[in-house]
C-alpha cells in the first residue's frame, strides 16, 4: 500500500505538467489526450482528466472551442492561453530542477 501511495503522489505532481505539454503541442480533445498519455505509459482516468481540465480552464490556463463531428456529439478542443503558457513555463522550470536534483541524488 505504501508504494502505491507514494507512486500516486508522484503522478499527481506531474499530471498537470504533462497535460499542458500535450495541449501545447497541438490542440486536443479529452479522449485524445488520454490516448496520448496512454501511449506514453501514463494512464489516467477520464474522471480525473475532466475535472482537471475544467479547473485549468477556470483558472484561465486553457480555453476551448467546439468542433462539430460527423460521428457523435461535438467535441471540445482545448488550447493553451497566454496565462497557460506562462504557467507551463514555470512548471517546466520546476520539473527540470526537480529531476536534476533527483538524478544527482540517485546516482
Amino acid at each position, binding site marked *: *500500500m505504501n508504494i502505491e501511495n507514494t507512486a500516486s503522489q508522484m503522478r*499527481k505532481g506531474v*499530471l498537470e505538467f504533462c497535460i499542458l505539454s500535450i495541449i501545447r503541442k497541438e490542440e486536443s480533445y479529452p479522449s485524445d489526450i488520454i490516448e496520448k498519455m496512454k501511449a506514453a505509459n501514463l494512464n489516467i*482516468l*477520464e474522471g*480525473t482528466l*475532466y475535472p482537471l481540465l475544467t*479547473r485549468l480552464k477556470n483558472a484561465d490556463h486553457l480555453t476551448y472551442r467546439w468542433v462539430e463531428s460527423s*460521428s457523435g456529439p461535438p467535441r*471540445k478542443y482545448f488550447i493553451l492561453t497566454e496565462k497557460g503558457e506562462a504557467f507551463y513555463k514555470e512548471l517546466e522550470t520546476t520539473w527540470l530542477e526537480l529531476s536534476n536534483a533527483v538524478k544527482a541524488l540517485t546516482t
Partner: protein
Amino acid sequence: MKQVININFQGRVVPIEVTAFEILNQYIDSLNRHFAAEPGKEEIINDIENRIGELFQERLDSGSNCITEEHVYGVIASMGRPEDFDSDAEKVEQVLHTYTDQRRRLYRDENNKKIGGVCSGIANYFDLDVTLVRVLFILFALAGFGILFYLILWIAVPGSSVAVIGGPRKRLYRDTDEKIIGGVCSGIGHYFAVNPWLPRTILLVLLFSTAFKWTFGGIFNPENVFIIGLSPTIILAYIIAWLSIPAAKTTAEKLEMKGEKVDFNSIKETVVAGMQSSRPRFDNSPETPQTPVQKNRSFIDILALLIKIVMYIILGFIGIIVLITLIAMVIASTQIFPYKGFIISDGFQNYMAWGSLIFFVIVPIVGFLVFIFRRLARIKRKSNVYRYAFLTMWIVGWFCSIALGISLQNDFKASSDIIENNIALENPDVQILNVSNQLKSPRHYKIRWNNISGLALLNSDSIMISNVHIQIAKSDNDSFKVSTIKMSEGPNRRVANRNATAIKFNVFQQDSTLVIDKDFPITKDEKFRNQMVVVTVYVPVGRKIKVEKNVSASSRRNSNLLIVTDNVERAWRKGTTYIMTEDGLYTTDGKKASRHNDIDDEEDYNDGPDLRDKKPGKRRIIIESEISKREKNKNIKADKTPDAIVIPKVKLAKEQEMPLKEVSWNDEFNLDAGYNHISMSAQ
C-alpha cells in the same frame, strides 16, 4: 430477453437495456455526488456524459443494436469510478503500523489480533514475541484476574487505527439495524470488533446461570427455570444498557459505531451500499466500495457460532418443556372442570379463573406455536405487534392467576368452631363394638374420566368428600360414647361455621355395630373449604372394639389437625379386635396396640416414652428435639404427642410436669388455619 428503452442522451436517441440504464443512472448519480462541491461541476459532468455518449456511439456503430449492461460496465471501467478519481483533496490514507514509526506508544494492533489485539500491541511495545505474550496472558487468565485485565486493556488501549489524527473514532452505539432485542449486543460487538454473537452468548450464559444453580440443587422443575432462574441482575443491566447507549441513527453515527472514517467518501459508500444491496455492483477494479467486512474470521467467530448453536438447542429444549407443562396444565384444568364449581365461587373468582386459564396458560401456548410456525415458514416479522400483544396478555394472565390464588387463599382463612355432636349409644351392655361403614352406599354417579379418589359426585349439585377421621379413646365411664366433630374453613368465622354446620354426616347404631358414613356431601354453595369430620369412639374399660377394614375413615393422624384428647389411642389397626384396659388398647392376645395402621411400614415403631404412665389430666412437656429426631428417622411428619404440648427448642434438661390451665370447650379460641391445636379438658 430484456426490455430495451430509448433515452435521450446528450441530444441523441440511444437504445439501451432497462437494467443497463439503471446502472448508468446510478453511475451518473455517483458522479454528481462526487463532484457536488466542485466548481464547474455541471461542465465536468457534461463533459463526462459527452464522452460516454461517444463511447456508446462507437458501440452502436460497431454493430450492436442497443447498449447492454456489458457496454455500460465497460464504459464505466474506462471512465473510472468516482472513488478512483485523483482529486486535489487528497485522502488521508490510513497509516497502518504507525506505531512502528512513531515514538513508542501502547496501541492495540487490530491487524494482528486474535481477540482484541491486546497481546499484539503489548508485544510490539515491548519488542517481545506475540505468542509469548499470549501465553503469559492465558496463564494470567487461569490464575484468575487475567480476563478482567485483558478486558480493561481492550477498552482502554486505543486501537491502531486511532493512531492517525483525524482517523476514525470508535464510539459505543446500539446497532438497531442488526438487533435481536435492542441492539445492545450488536453495538458492543462492533465496538470490540467481534462477532455480535459473542456478547450475546455471554449475556445468555449469565442470564441462565442462576437457573442452573436451581436445577442442579433440586429436581429439574421447568417452572423454576422459567420464572425464577432468569438472573434479574442481568436483565436489569441489559435494560440499563438499552436505555443509556444511544442508537446509531445517522450514517455518520453508524460509521463511528463501526470505527470507520467519517468523511464524504465513506458516507457516500455507506448510503450507496445500502441502496444497492440488491443490485449488481461494478467491481472490475480491485477496490470495491463495500463497507469493510471482517477480513480475518478469527477463531472467536467460529467459537461464537458453535456456542450459538448450543444455545439454540438448549433454548429449544427449554421451550419444549415449558410448552409441555402448559399443555399439561390445560389438560389438568379440563379434568378439574366438573369440580370447578366446588372450589371457585362465582363472580370474581370465576372470572379470575377463566382469565388465568386463557391468558396465563393458553396464550403462551398459542404464542409459542405461532412463533414456531413463523420461524419454520420463514415469515419475516413485520412488526413487533404480535410479540407485544402476547406479552401483554400473558402478563394479564399472571395478574389473574395471582388474584385467583390470593382470593382462594382468603377463602380458607378462617376456621370454624368445633361443632360437636355427642351420641350416647344405647344398649350399654354391648361388649364389643364393631365400627363399620354402610354396607350399601347410595348410588354415586361418577364422571367417567376422573380417577381422583375421594371425589365422586352424588348428583350434579353436590360432591362427596371423604375427609373423615376416626379416633379411639378411653371412655371415662362405663358406656360407649361417640362424638362427631365437624370442622371447616372459610373466609371468616361466620361462613366457616355455616360450612361446618352444613356437613351432613350420619352415625347410627345397629345393635352392636356402629355405622358411620363413609363420606359427606358438600354442595356448590358451601364449596370445598377443607371440611372435615372427626369421629371419636369412647370405649369403656373392659369392653372391646373392632374397626372393620371396610371403614374408609382415616385413622392416621392428620398432620395439620391435632386433636388433643387425653387418652386418645395413637396406634391401632383396622380389622383387629382390641380390648380397652386401664393402660390403653391391647389386642385380645395381650399385645399392646401397635402403630401399624394402613402404612406399609413393617418396622415396629416404638412410641418413645410411654405417655400413659402418667395419670390422666396431667400434661407433660417434651423437648421437641427429641421427638423430631425420632420422627426424622422414620420420615414421618412431626407427630405431636397427644397429651403434651411441644415447645420448640426449649432447653429443658429433663421432662417436667407443669399443670396447665384447664380450658373448657366453649371458650373462644384463636385458631390459625392449618394448625388447629385444640385441647380438651378431661372432665
